[in-house]
């Protein structure tokens, strides 16, 4: 069982959060929008907290918010806000400053993914997947 901190609970972040919680992990979510808390609750029988999840309201660059959300104890850090630049910054901080063992960062811009991957950052680029899917779908055209 791992302690997973997810920053940014949009569609992706919140779904990953619920899945990880269901898989028996400790999951803490940090988001600056209270709506994202409701998103976590939706589709569950109980509230996010009753199911064992943690939620902290705050921005991913605020050190106090990151601490409150448990960055110092995290085994896994997921940067999944809607901003590439925020994700790239906080992912590097989680890895370099807080020494979180596993850091995964969502980056929409494929051009930068390549370079940051070379620097040792574990990145996921939804845009690259979309491009690949489109190209595959268009193969028969």
């Amino acid at each position, binding site marked *: 069982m791992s302690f997973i901190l997810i920053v940014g609970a949009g569609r992706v972040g919140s779904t990953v959060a619920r899945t990880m919680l269901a898989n028996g992990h400790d999951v803490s979510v940090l988001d600056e929008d209270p709506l994202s808390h409701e998103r976590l609750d939706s589709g569950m029988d109980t509230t996010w907290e009753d199911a064992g999840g943690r939620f902290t309201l705050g921005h991913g*660059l*605020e*050190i106090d918010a990151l601490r409150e959300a448990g960055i110092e104890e995290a085994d896994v850090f997921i940067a999944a806000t809607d*901003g*590439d*630049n*925020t994700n*790239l*910054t906080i992912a*590097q*901080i989680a890895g*370099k*400053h807080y020494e979180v063992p596993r850091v995964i960062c969502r980056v929409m*811009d494929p*051009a*930068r993914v390549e*370079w940051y991957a070379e*620097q040792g950052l574990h990145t996921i680029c939804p845009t690259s997947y979309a491009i690949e899917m489109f190209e595959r779908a268009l193969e028969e055209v």
Partner: protein
Amino acid sequence: MYVVIAGAGKVGWNLARELMSKRHEVTVIESDRSRYLTVEQELEHAIQYGDATELWVLERAGISRADLTIAVTGDDEDNLLICQLAKEKYLCERIIARVNNPRNRQYFELLGIQPAVSATDLILRLIEHEVPSYGTVHLLDLRDEQLEIIEVEVPEGSPVIGRRVSDITLPDGALIISILRDGKGFVPKADTVISDGDEVLLVLDPGLEDSITEQFASDRRDAA
């Protein structure tokens, strides 16, 4: 010198003007279309429209031949990443980043983005300079060169009052370079005697500041 400036706000625009008037070659990158159009009327070809955190935008601006990259957008993450790319991917020799929120300064330091300039910190320093009760003022920090210049006020009751400069034992790496007395500065000699209310300027290796401040501090506090 070729300078790339990210962000055409008040800071970026005026920096560009100044640098161009000193005959430097400048390219400003601005991501807000209407701001770009406004500034473009003056800077013309020296401004480009685009998001400076995107590689192709930086490349179009000629980042790889830039001697200096300055990131002065209103967004700290952007400034940090622009400077990181300039320095580490495009091997630009000198970078300057603006820190909008001084609480983010630590992140710039952590990721090796130096110098990072924060208006709030600059104003705080000015306040320190204007309000002598703060005791020690940082006048200059040369991080790369590993030197600092500080100003220490000699308070009433300080153990250095009445002593000659040559009799004050400073730690290695610290040197008294000037004394301000009655609004005038002079370079002290070995036999210059320190007076109450003097402001002493010292050049230091980094990390010596606390011991110097202690050495000049008043004894009264302890006696009271």
